[in-house]
């Protein structure tokens, strides 16, 4: 690790802590440091500020870190796997898969499927199935933009199925699903956090074992095999890890666009390396910081304008992607 990388890591750690703390104090209700202390260690259930801390502030900040980091890391894996700077869980339709399956489970009226575990399982299954669909199509095209178009078409196709589902569902189910699709970091409750953290930890541990194959995969699939790695299992394992991150984030926050596409590109430009152990840490930090800051801005603007997180990330992310397209794929 050279000096430049070490300096970046130090800066990112400081920024992450600062933006996490900033996020905790960014909401409209004024909450003091002692409220935080007491809410965590001397909870008074009749105190509104304590409840805001436990039920809103802390889960929202933690989920911002997890969603930002998870989507960015998933995006990095997809970009290396498909050798495509434009790949990401959102554009390639992995989120879409989750959305479709979550729509099914929310609108079937079966209470089992509407529980936390039901929704997470649906989101994971949807992400996994759509991940393998994209992997299948990737065998037919080496062209960057073609795969993207396939992802977009998958999006339109599932969008249509979801519309049909919506016409058949009850008003209450429809409302729950519509709110979910807008994407938000505030739906997660304190007691759901362990489950989210568990899945995120599983994904992170799995990611460590993808560092080596990703570093080699940069040389192309032929070289990967000649260096002794089984390319089929690398592909399958990458899709599983990507689906795990995307599925769990999508289940709790709804679809969040562009983070998984923009952050890995930004990270690679900053660190100027193909070493995925450095890129993994970089994406983790930059993704988390990006979503913490985005969500802080959303909270600060809340009094004047209600922005869903998905709208905000698209506003920032889409121009950045156009820049990448023009620069890298002239």
């Amino acid at each position: 690790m050279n000096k430049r990388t070490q300096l970046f890591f130090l800066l990112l750690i400081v920024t992450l802590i600062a933006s996490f703390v900033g996020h905790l104090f960014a909401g409209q209700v004024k909450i003091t440091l002692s409220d935080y202390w007491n809410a965590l260690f001397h909870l008074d259930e009749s105190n509104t500020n304590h409840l805001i801390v436990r039920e809103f502030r802390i889960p929202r900040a933690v989920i911002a870190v997890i969603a930002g980091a998870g989507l960015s890391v998933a995006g990095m894996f997809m970009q290396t796997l498909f050798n495509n700077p434009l790949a990401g869980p959102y554009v390639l339709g992995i989120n879409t898969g989750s959305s479709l399956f979550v729509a099914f489970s929310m609108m079937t009226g079966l209470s089992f499927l509407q529980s936390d575990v039901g929704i997470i399982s649906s989101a994971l299954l949807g992400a996994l199935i759509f991940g393998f669909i994209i992997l299948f199509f990737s065998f037919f095209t080496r062209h960057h933009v073609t795969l993207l178009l396939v992802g977009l078409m998958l999006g339109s196709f599932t969008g249509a199925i979801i519309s049909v589902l919506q016409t058949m569902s009850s008003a209450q189910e429809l409302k729950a699903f519509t709110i979910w699709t807008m994407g938000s970091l505030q739906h997660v409750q304190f007691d759901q956090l362990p489950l989210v953290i568990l899945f995120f930890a599983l994904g992170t541990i799995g990611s460590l074992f993808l560092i080596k194959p990703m570093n080699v995969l940069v040389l192309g699939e032929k070289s990967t095999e000649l260096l002794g790695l089984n390319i089929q299992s690398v592909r399958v394992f990458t899709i599983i890890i990507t689906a795990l991150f995307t599925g769990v984030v999508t289940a709790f926050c709804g679809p969040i666009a562009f983070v998984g596409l923009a952050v890995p590109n930004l990270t690679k430009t900053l660190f100027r390396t193909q070493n995925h152990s450095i890129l993994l840490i970089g994406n983790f930090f930059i993704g988390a910081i990006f979503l913490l800051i985005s969500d802080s801005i959303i909270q600060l603007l809340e009094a004047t304008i209600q922005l869903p997180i998905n709208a905000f990330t698209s506003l920032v992310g889409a121009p950045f992607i156009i820049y990448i397209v023009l620069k890298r794929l002239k």
Partner: protein
Amino acid sequence: MIQFNTVEIGYKQALLTINKLELKRGEVYALIGSNGSGKSTLLNTILKKIPVLAGDVYLNSTAVASYSVTELAKTIAFVDSKFDGIEHLSVVDYIGLGRTPYTNALGRLRSEDHAIVDAAIEKLNLGTFRNRETLQLSDGERQMVSIARAICQSTPIILLDEPTAFLDYGNRKKLIETLNEIAKTENKCVLFSTHDIEICLEEKGINLLVINQSKKELELYSNTISKSEIISIGFSLVNE
């Protein structure tokens, strides 16, 4: 090291027959033949990319077909005719990827791996661009860097598919000399396909494997053979 026993190779129909032949460690073999005569097919057969049509190719008395992907990566290192370089991938990191078959699941290089990488860099005099990006090198430099990566793979065999195809005269000569030196000093069996007949004849101790165009057979010659003989065997032209 590489043994052939009446092997027929090709895609579906036989392109080339190799009767009885053994390629040894410490020797360099230049594979010469016309376009489409089966040079790449032969290399791909040894790499287990294409199955043999008849007979068997043996590496150290074990049939190639029974090698696992990992075992093969510890036995053969392969260098393509061109490495285009990769954005943000440094020379030292690229050469280090040659250690992939030996690193643990997390892919971290141990101190002995770093020592092997450093030794290869020193051997090929690549020290000056150790930290440069592979994308910024010239074609000649990139080919040398690829050979360093192959050396780091610590395999008894190195195969190269037309490694000189995109190089200028000076770099062709230098590359073939380097291969010759590696084979002798590191006791490796080096096999490369090429069209640079003159350089292979000038350089001492290079064995020539010529694909006989009329018989469709692979024939081994020492480099006392003349250029005109090679051309008449391999390219069905009689040189006046």
